[in-house]
């Protein structure tokens, strides 16, 4: 019974971290229609910047989060026009070229990180890293709980923003048809930049959590790209509630398979389920995706 509860809590906490990434990713996919292979590298860069800033300022990484989010949002904002240039190509497979472009970008960023900072693992320590809370015999690592709560809050805020504010409606309009949005006085390119900025900011911010829960190294992105894809696709691209459910599903599957089936089968089963969801529920578990 204790183990069952603990396994459930663990599961929730594993998946929680990836919800924010999924939300940012799917909204950027919705507006720009490209699958960004560099998502893992934004995570990595977010984690690294938290690490370096912490080294030099000694400020707790958790307090640095707003700053990192803003900084990377700015980077995304400045960088987006280059990707947009690829997306705008009048070619049947412009979206594919853009995808290949992000693949190149991911290689480039990884190579740069490896060259610049070496291959070493780094530890990102926050005040919460050392703590855990004991609830009815269940141990809850504080940093993971914080990450999950934070994820859900960010997601909810973002959902509110998209569905309840005028700018949100604008973004959804641009996601569907930028030409028509243009006729309504909406600058599609500015929206794309805005959305990409939000996405990069959110992803880098999640990187701070991921970095402090696990560790920080140049290749870390590869690993988390897979998880991010899982949550995005299983939840249904563009679906917020779907992202939350899929994030929790990811965690629960990992956790329960590890404990009750065997650790070796975690990814096998995870990818099998992702495949089944894709084939039989292509709009995501809740059927709400694009």
């Amino acid at each position, binding site marked *: 019974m204790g183990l069952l509860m603990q396994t459930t809590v663990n599961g929730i906490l594993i998946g929680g971290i990836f919800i924010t990434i999924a939300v940012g990713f799917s909204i950027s996919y919705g507006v720009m229609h490209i699958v960004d292979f560099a998502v893992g590298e934004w995570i990595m860069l977010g984690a690294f910047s938290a690490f370096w800033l912490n080294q030099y300022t000694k400020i707790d990484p958790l307090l640095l989060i707003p700053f990192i989010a803003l900084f990377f949002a700015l980077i995304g904002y400045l960088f987006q026009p280059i990707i947009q240039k690829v997306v705008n190509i009048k070619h049947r497979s412009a979206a594919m070229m853009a995808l290949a472009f992000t693949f190149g970008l991911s290689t480039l960023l990884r190579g740069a990180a490896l060259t610049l900072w070496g291959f070493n693992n780094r530890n990102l320590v926050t005040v919460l890293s050392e703590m855990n809370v004991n609830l009815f015999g269940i*141990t809850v690592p504080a940093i993971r709980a914080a990450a999950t709560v934070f994820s859900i809050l960010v997601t909810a805020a973002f959902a509110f923003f998209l569905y309840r504010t005028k700018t949100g409606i604008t973004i959804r309009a641009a996601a569907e048809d930028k030409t028509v949005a243009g006729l309504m006085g909406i600058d599609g390119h500015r929206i794309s930049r805005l959305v990409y900025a939000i996405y990069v900011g959110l992803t880098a911010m999640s990187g701070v959590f991921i970095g402090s829960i*696990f560790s920080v190294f140049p290749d870390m992105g590869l690993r988390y790209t897979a998880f991010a894809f899982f949550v995005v696709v299983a939840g249904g691209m563009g679906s917020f509630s779907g992202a939350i459910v899929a994030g929790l599903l990811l965690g629960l599957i990992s956790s329960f398979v590890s404990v009750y089936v065997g650790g070796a089968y975690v990814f096998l089963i995870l990818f099998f389920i992702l495949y089944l969801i894709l084939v039989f529920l292509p709009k995501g578990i809740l059927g709400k995706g694009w």
Partner: protein
Amino acid sequence: GCGSSSTGASSSASSETRDYYKVGVITSLSGAEVYGGNVTKYGYDLWADAVNKKGGIKVDDKNYQLKLIYSDDQSDPTAGANAAERLITSEKVDFILGPYTSGVTKAVAPILDKYKVPMITGSAESPTIWTQKFKYTFGTIPAADLTANSPLDTLAKLANPPKTIAVLGVNDAFSKAVAEAFKASAEKNGMKVVKYDVVPAGTDFTPLISAIKQLNPDVLAVGGHETEHMQVIKASKSLGFMPKAFVMHYGITTPDFIKNLGKDGDYVYGAAVWTPDLKLKDDLFGTVEDYVKASKEKFNVVPDYTQAGCSATGEAFSAALAKIAAKPPLSEQQREQLVKALEEIDIQTFYGPIKFATEGNWYHDNVGLKALTIQMLNGDQLVVGPDNLKAKDPVYPVPAFNAR
């Protein structure tokens, strides 16, 4: 069709003249194993530096310098095979210092046999490399299954030995071999294995550690690399799991592990065939202390047994070359002599004895070394077993994370 065979005879190196040895190095400078790849690189570089500083390898009263030619295997067997082919046929190297990973080693070995170019790997530890009996491939570090039993043997001899143990392994060749060896040695020592599981690289350890926490074993033993070991310790701490001891293998002596975990990394048991505190010495590097100093100067790292093993690997070549008096460039015949010489060497180095087996399941692996049980403290690797070599008594049970 037009595909007849001519096994690269044209690429024989003998036509060239040069007054230095060209040494190929294949290792992982990128990809998944970039960390370990660089550890081996440090080791090989230190050897070449030391030799060159002394003037070179002395053959027939003349000194020949060393030149290392690196080739990245990208942690991928295919790229490793390409690298070997290039080093041998384009660069025409005289011999090769081998890859970090066992997988790449296995892909490279047949190519060496084809061109009859000897290679010693200072790192790869998977037992399955040696069962293939490749004629031109040697290894300095004993296979994992020869070393991994040492910490549990040490623990079993204590007054209050652990009774229960949980074993986790990562699903790669080396880590799985280690985990299996842990399991076997636990059973041999009469411990009860309450949980044995293998996980793919990149798994989150929290669920398994929660499950293990419920089983409350005396010892948690883990086969993996430094990244996973760090994760295990972090996850255990965050879940409030504190067994009487953690047992690990390769990785806990790396600077990453020591630096990142700090006090949390203390008291972890491991197996090593060498530590920076050993009282050994040789002519090239001097004492172990000297070697550590050289390493700190050049790379700012305290060497671990893999790095030192790689440096010692070079010494095996130096010795064999001197013995057959082969000047660069080596002809095919000389390379065959070199293999024979390697099979016969039995030398003492700062790393310990090097002697390659010539038969059995560890064919061409160094069987001269004894496995040590180490326990980490303040970043130092304290030898706590076997009894005749120990510098200190093992601490068991170890203090809890918050009581250090």
